[in-house]
């Protein structure tokens, strides 16, 4: 085989060097091209994100409630809005609080005048909304109520916590935060639905808390004035004979009063308190260890049920009269999520 000449070798080396240089340049150019395109795409996405929300909605619902003052209603409204967004429904809050200076009935009438597709009425205390609900019904706008019902109206659905389940959740809270095997527990009762609540409580303590020796004392506080309730709480917690280890408050209002009494009488830590509701002060109390646990309706599920109930009625013309939702327990272990929200 003939030997390659020196010139050919030199030429070959130059050619190889040139090819290497070309390939290296091409690789760098390609990488730069990718970087430039990526930067453009990234920026395009950023610009698109700040542009108008192009999501389309089928229905327009309004949430009538004191979302400005009630943390619970606010969370339920947010949950309904979030779920509605996923199912093509725009849920808009019409605040009934002090800032708006409007009544529930007025807001329902306003919603009717807006021509919305559905109305969610949250935790109203007023008794005169039946007419407003009827006017909505005449305008073929379905109304669902949440937390508080309007039994004599034409509302389509009432979404409420399952009282038996609330009792179960309280029981699980007791089991979770119990500091001793033998416990004296006082329950402040005020509603007509005590039986179901107590049944849920007792059943669960017997089943899941059978390792504990629990003595339950009930105190009826129906129609009791605030100052009297505060005194009663102070007496109970300082009564050595009763030796209360844990105090259960089944409503948000009662919980707030009890907490106030404990703080006023400097009784924090003397007994464990399990309350109901979700507002800033109660959450802070859990965070500080002044309240052991809070029971609270599952807001995500509630919001979802509100939207589903209205969707179901609009789409099929029928819906359930009552829908119950489960409760959840807030302790120092999961308080972070709620404080952040």
């Amino acid at each position: 085989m003939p030997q390659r000449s020196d010139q050919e070798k030199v030429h070959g080396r130059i050619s190889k060097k040139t090819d290497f240089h070309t390939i290296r340049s091409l690789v760098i150019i390609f990488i730069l091209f990718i970087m430039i395109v990526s930067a453009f795409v990234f920026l395009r996405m950023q610009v698109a994100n700040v542009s108008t929300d192009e999501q389309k909605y089928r229905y327009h619902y309004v949430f009538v409630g004191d979302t400005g003052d009630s943390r619970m209603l606010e969370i339920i409204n947010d949950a309904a809005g979030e779920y509605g967004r996923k199912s093509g429904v725009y849920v808009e809050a019409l605040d009934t609080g002090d800032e708006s200076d409007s009544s529930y009935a007025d807001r329902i009438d306003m919603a009717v005048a807006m021509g919305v597709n559905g109305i969610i009425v949250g935790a109203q205390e007023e008794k005169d909304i039946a007419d407003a609900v009827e006017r909505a019904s005449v305008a073929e706008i379905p109304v669902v109520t949440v937390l508080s019902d309007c039994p004599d109206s034409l509302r389509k659905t009432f979404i409420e916590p399952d009282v038996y389940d609330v009792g179960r959740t309280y029981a699980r809270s007791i089991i979770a935060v119990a500091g001793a095997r033998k416990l004296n527990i006082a329950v402040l009762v005020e509603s007509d639905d005590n039986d179901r609540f107590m049944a849920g409580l007792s059943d669960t303590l017997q089943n899941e808390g059978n390792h504990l020796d629990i003595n339950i004392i009930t105190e009826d506080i129906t129609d009791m004035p605030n100052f009297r309730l505060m005194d009663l709480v102070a007496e109970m917690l300082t009564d050595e004979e009763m030796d209360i280890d844990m105090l259960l408050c089944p409503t948000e209002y009662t919980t707030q009063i009890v907490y106030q009494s404990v703080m006023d009488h400097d009784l924090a830590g003397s007994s464990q308190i399990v309350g109901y509701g979700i507002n800033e002060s109660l959450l802070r109390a859990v965070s500080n260890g002044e309240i052991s646990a809070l029971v609270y309706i599952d807001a995500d599920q509630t919001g979802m049920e509100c939207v589903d109930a209205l969707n179901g009625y609009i789409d099929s013309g029928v819906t359930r009269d009552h829908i119950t939702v489960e409760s959840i327990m807030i302790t120092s272990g999961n308080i972070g999520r709620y404080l952040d929200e």
Partner: protein
Amino acid sequence: MSRKPVKLQNQIICIFLLTFASILLVNLYIFSGMRELIDNMDSAYDGNRKLTDMRGLLDSIQLELDDYINTKDESGLNKFYKDMAEYKIIVESLKHEGELTEQEMREKAIVNLSTRYVRSTNTAILSKRSGDIVRYQEDYAVSVRDYEHLISYMADLNTKSFGENSGKYERIYEVMHQANIIYSVILALMGIFDILLLNLLLRRLMRPLQELARVANEVGEGNLDVAISEIHDYNEIGIVSSAFNNMITSLKEYIRQFKASVESESRLREKSIRMEASAKEAQLKYLQAQINPHFLFNTLNAGAQLAMLEEADRTYSYILRVADFFRYRIKNSEGISTISEELKIVDDYIYIINVRFAGEIHYNADVDEKLLQTAVPSMILQPIVENCIKHGLRDVEWEKKIDLSVYSEGDSTVISVRDNGVGIPDDVIERILNNKLNEDDNEKMQGGVGLDNVITRLRVFYDRENVIEITSVEKDMGTEIALYIPR
């Protein structure tokens, strides 16, 4: 398959256009992106502005309605209807159907609230005109309620929208800040991208030119066994490269032919030289066979000794001078001598000639002794003197004289030989000085060193032309030959 050639100029223009276009495109894209962001910023509060404008108009309408209800002043209604018409136009622009966005849902709600309000105000005005006090009060109350619903919703919406728009404005501002940084980075990357692309394409374009320069350099250094291996014939460089390869091939062929021709000629010349050398060698051998210098000198020496034994002193001296004369000629025919030695051989020659011709040559030498050791080519004077005797003095009737003088003149040593013979015609002088004496003249010089030979040797030895001057004024006025020897 060869491509259609494209001008190098066009290729370079295309490369620059490519990079320019890429930068331009990126800038346009950046400009449009920034424009979009600025538009978004500008329109961030459009909803609030529109709501505020509607609210203002709505307040005017309600005020005008109040005035009419309270005063029943028909003149105020014109303004009411004008404002209402304007408001309806705005409301009309907010109507939407089908699946709607969040903003469109809200606008649709405003449309419905407004429609109800417009209807209730018209009803209130009609009731007022009818004079039914109870009815117009009820209708007016409804219109007030609808107005309150509308402005309440607008206020809520305005507050809500303002919060959302503020958030949106902040997001746009953040994105704009990000965009400024990213666009700067993109421009920098694009600059590097273009420089690399330019470098790559120009390098690709210039590579054949570099190859051409490399090969041309090698050819310039004498290496013709090279060729441009990679020829891209799609521009002028490719054409030049191809022509260069053809040129190398032609050059190699021409050199091959030239070498063959030179070799052939060289062989012929070598053959000729060999023949000539052989002939000269033969001639030399012939001459050597004729005259053996040693034999001649031994013979002359034997004659000289015989003359001395017979006490023939003049014969002895004559034979001795003849021997010296030939010895000098044989010994120094091609070497370097001095003026002194040259004068000695001239003396010997004159002596021999005078013995032969009964002393009829009157020789006189006037020599500057400082110049005696000046080096000169040997055998330059005797041929001149011999020439004087043979051609100048041979046939004259008067006393024959030869005057030789050596002296300095400027930076030369001059040796002058003058005779009083017949002289030399001008045309002959011309031929002598130009070395154009014919064969007959040279034949006459055979056996000695001719004047032509002396002139040639002097010119070669001193590397100059004006080494001799021949002066002959006219016929029978004699001749002077002067040699100019540089010092």
